[in-house]
């Protein structure tokens, strides 16, 4: 079994969101970077659990990013995985990024490609589906549970208003979310061994970019809260009914 886990670098969930260069770029100064939580907590940790259950499993990580991504790649390797590949690119177009991952996945002949369900910065939810289409593989999105049974993947995925259990032959692409695994913290042994694990850097393959960012902006500030006394909660209901007209 060969597994490829896609990891992306995102600002920490508490990072202040601001923009620079005339609102065309994220203001990265002083920002703490993390592994995209969906990629780390769910995709990577579940893949590590699969390797723990079957030590013959080969587990590789891939990141499409610049050298700035290396600290989060080392952190991912400290959690687990045999080696990492960084595709040296600063492209932010999903089709281009998916093309890079698909090229790595094809070359490495992986049985399983895991992604997070989305990144917490671009919120595209696109990479998994695009990689699957580029490789002409089945795609199970929004997985909350993943198991292997007799060479097939049994995946529970979220659908609107409930869950669906799917069975699919490998190879396949799966996007992962909450429920797949529990968050882990790297231990000292992991951190030490991550230093010597291979981190290969390759140059991107030629691929088109289909979209580009024109500008960023922040939502308008709220006008301020209208407080109602705790002694008269029915006044709140009246306001919601007559003023806001939402109930």
């Amino acid at each position, binding site marked *: 079994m060969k597994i490829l886990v896609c990891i992306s670098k995102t600002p920490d969930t508490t990072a202040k969101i601001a923009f620079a260069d005339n609102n065309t770029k994220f203001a990265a100064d002083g920002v703490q970077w993390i592994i995209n939580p969906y990629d780390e907590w769910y995709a990577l940790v579940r893949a590590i659990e699969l390797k723990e259950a079957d030590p013959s499993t080969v587990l590789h990580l891939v990141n499409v990013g610049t050298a700035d991504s290396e600290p989060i790649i080392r952190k991912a390797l400290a959690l687990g995985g045999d080696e990492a590949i960084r595709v040296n690119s600063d492209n932010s177009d999903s089709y281009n990024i998916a093309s890079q991952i698909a090229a790595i996945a094809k070359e490495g002949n992986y049985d399983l490609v895991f992604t997070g369900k989305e990144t917490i910065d671009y919120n595209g939810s696109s990479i998994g*589906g695009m990689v699957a289409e580029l490789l002409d593989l089945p795609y199970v999105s929004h997985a909350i549970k993943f198991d292997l049974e007799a060479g097939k993947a049994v995946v529970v995925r979220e659908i609107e208003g409930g869950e669906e259990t799917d069975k699919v032959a490998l190879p396949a692409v799966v996007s992962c979310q909450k429920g797949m695994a529990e968050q882990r913290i790297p231990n000292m042994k992991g951190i030490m061994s991550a230093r010597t694990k291979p981190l290969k850097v390759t140059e991107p393959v030629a691929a088109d970019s289909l979209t580009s960012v024109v500008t960023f902006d922040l939502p308008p500030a709220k006008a301020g809260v209208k407080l109602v006394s705790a002694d008269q909660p029915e006044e709140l209901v009246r306001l919601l009914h007559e003023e806001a007209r939402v109930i």
Partner: protein
Amino acid sequence: MSVLVFLDQADGHIKKSSFEAANYAAKIAEQLGTVAEAVVLGSVSDDLAATGNYGIKKVHTVSDASLNKMDAQVYTKVIAQVVEATGADVLVFSNNTTGKAIAPRLSVKLKAGLVSGAVALPDTRNGFTVKKTVFSGKAFATISINTGKKIVALNPNSFNVTTGAGTAEVVAFAATIDAAKVEVVSVNKVVGEVPLSEAEIVVSGGRGLKGPENWGLVTDLAKLLGAATACSRPVADIHWRPHHEHVGQTGLAIAPNLYIAIGISGAIQHLAGVNRSKTIVVINKDPEAPFFKAADYGIVGDAFEVMPKIIDAVKKIKGA
């Protein structure tokens, strides 16, 4: 040239978010001086001609029963055939779980730039740019789609639907349908609950409610209002409530008309998932709770005292 919208169905009924996407597609078509058509896969019992009320001129149906279950790969190939036959160059999806599974595949298959999570009509005056949420609702980005064919996936509850009177022509489309590689073993839906992503009102509880045994305060109000229930991350993490109720940066991002937060302090990660709600109500005993800064209405008070009175007052206006 036309606009084609994919109408997602479950159990034979078109989803609410798809009617919103249909109306959005019709408005794009109007902007571009063309017509909006729709595609529906699987057997549907709804009257599809009525999508005309949302501005759809023609509905292409592929009613093969094998399409009642969504396989991203199979759906992609069928929709691509409809795109080719109709010559559509703008494709619209609702950015729900189905849209997220198919739109990226079609982006690759049609070499069409995709913007997912759109929150407004595209600007088509000079090129084609679309505003979408980024940083989990903390900001917006305007993205330019630089390809001839374009795909836009609209965030549910982000477009103001206006209906008129119209009748869509419904035509059967003869498609080549592949066998699904993903076998659906079982579907387990929570019956009688409003799906969180489609709810107009959401009542949500946090650790301030002290334990799952007190959730009646949330569910009773939700039932009265026809609302969905949600919770903060710590509540899902300690298993007071199921994971699918978790809203926030690492849970579901929602944009209902009304979001009522009870006993939730409003950490930045939680706000990211709910700050597109049109009206936010916060009930918390801590006046310093950051949630009050993001709220429209608030009560500083003990939920255990305040909530029963609110439930009574809602009963009165609902005549219950």
